[in-house]
């Protein structure tokens, strides 16, 4: 079992600062996770209010990104972190970026949820969306979990799971295209579904990036594009 510790610096404030960016990243992760769940629920339950709330809340996610980024810059300027500390700070700056993008994707899904809820038509494509949404939510949860525990093994497992999502995405694409060919009237709706699936797939990719960053922090190895 790998154990990471960011404590026991001679400067206790440094411990506190590292701990702070870590908890704030966790907080932001939790917030983003919640945004995603709400967006998905807005689609499946055609709840446009919930969707609007997701859109409004995204601003808070953006603000959190800016805050954490500033904290990281301050740490770099003041403490000149090295080795694992440096990797953690760099990881956090990248991770907030990924989380912010996940937030953006959730907002897009919410936008489509509003459009879809106005159409009041048969639930074409919902099973596909639900299937991918379940996987992606799980992946994001796993990634954040791996980060909380600095569990590189869990992170690697999560990266493997993302490959399944990519496969599911391709299957869903094919199915939605099939709908469009079968019933040209459903094209506009199907395109919305397509965008939602696409966003979910992007969220999976961002979650995978997050996992790669975790592996980098823990093992010092860059496993991107391998």
């Amino acid at each position: 079992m790998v154990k990471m510790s960011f404590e026991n610096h001679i400067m206790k404030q440094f411990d506190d600062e590292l701990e702070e960016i870590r908890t704030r990243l966790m907080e932001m992760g939790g917030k983003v996770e919640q945004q995603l769940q709400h967006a998905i629920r807005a689609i499946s339950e055609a709840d446009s209010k919930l969707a609007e709330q997701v859109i409004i809340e995204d601003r808070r996610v953006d603000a959190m990104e800016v805050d954490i980024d500033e904290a990281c810059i301050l740490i770099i300027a003041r403490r000149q972190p090295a080795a694992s500390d440096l990797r953690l700070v760099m990881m956090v700056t990248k991770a907030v970026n990924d989380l912010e993008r996940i937030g953006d994707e959730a907002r897009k899904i919410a936008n489509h949820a509003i459009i879809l809820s106005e159409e009041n038509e048969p639930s074409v494509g919902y099973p596909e969306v639900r299937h991918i949404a379940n996987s992606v939510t799980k992946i994001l949860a796993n990634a954040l979990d791996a980060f909380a525990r600095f569990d590189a093994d869990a992170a690697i497992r999560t990266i493997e799971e993302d490959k399944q999502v990519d496969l599911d995405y391709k299957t869903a694409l094919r199915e939605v295209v099939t709908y469009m060919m079968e019933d040209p009237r459903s094209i506009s709706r199907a395109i919305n579904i397509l965008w939602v699936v696409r966003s979910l797939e992007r969220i999976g990719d961002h979650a995978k990036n997050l996992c790669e960053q975790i592996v980098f922090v823990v093992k010092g190895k860059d496993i991107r594009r391998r």
Partner: protein
Amino acid sequence: MKLASEQTLELDEGHVTVGQSFSDDPKMTMRNINVFYAEKQAIYDVSIDITKNEVIAMIGPSGCGKSTFLRTLNRMNDTVDGCRVEGDICMDGENLYAPNLDVVELRARVGMVFQKPNPFPKSIRDNVTYGPKIHGLADTRVDLDEILEKSLRKAGLWEEVKDRLDQPGTGLSGGQQQRLCIARAIAVSPEVILMDEPCSALDPIATAKIEELIEELSQNFTIAIVTHSMQQAARVSHRTAYFHLGKLIEVNPTEQVFTMPQHQLTEAYITGRFG
């Protein structure tokens, strides 16, 4: 590769240096060096190569033996009573501790710059030409002047002092004094320059100038530098060696040491957890 985080802060008995301590093109090779001060052992079984024209930094907490180790390379430890060096230290394959080797010749080949700027209380000219004079490197005054200018130029000091070569070297600022000491060291054209915390007594600007100078000098000289400042090691060196309690823990390319050190102790030291 053993993961940094899997090791404990305890050092095992038969510690073996991790990382890349050896080189294909070594200037100096050291094998199984043990150094004793009377009964006390200061260096334990250190083996390392110094590559040609590289800058190798030695870091570690106070009393870890990095300065002692540096001083074995030009036998400055000979002057310390009760100091004993075991093991093989070779430069270009020649054993530095061979009985027939003259330390005077060795020190002309391996120059040294010290922690505190220590120009002789003589003129700038005399400071730089002292080495060439005692080693008989120049026959005429013209030759000496040539060496003087060349050395001061290389040390980046010529423009600042060319109008006052006959004024005392001790009248310069701290950073200038240290560059004068570097000029003095390179005046005898050594092959290796040892620097023992050369910037610890200097302000940041003077430090930056010395660091820039080290970068330039590395094109012609092999440089081994001991430093307390990890940032300095990160800035100037190509490889970094980490010493702990007289043992060489890790040697690796500097960029690796400062992003993902291989050994837990190195990690703990450079992240500021002790030292």
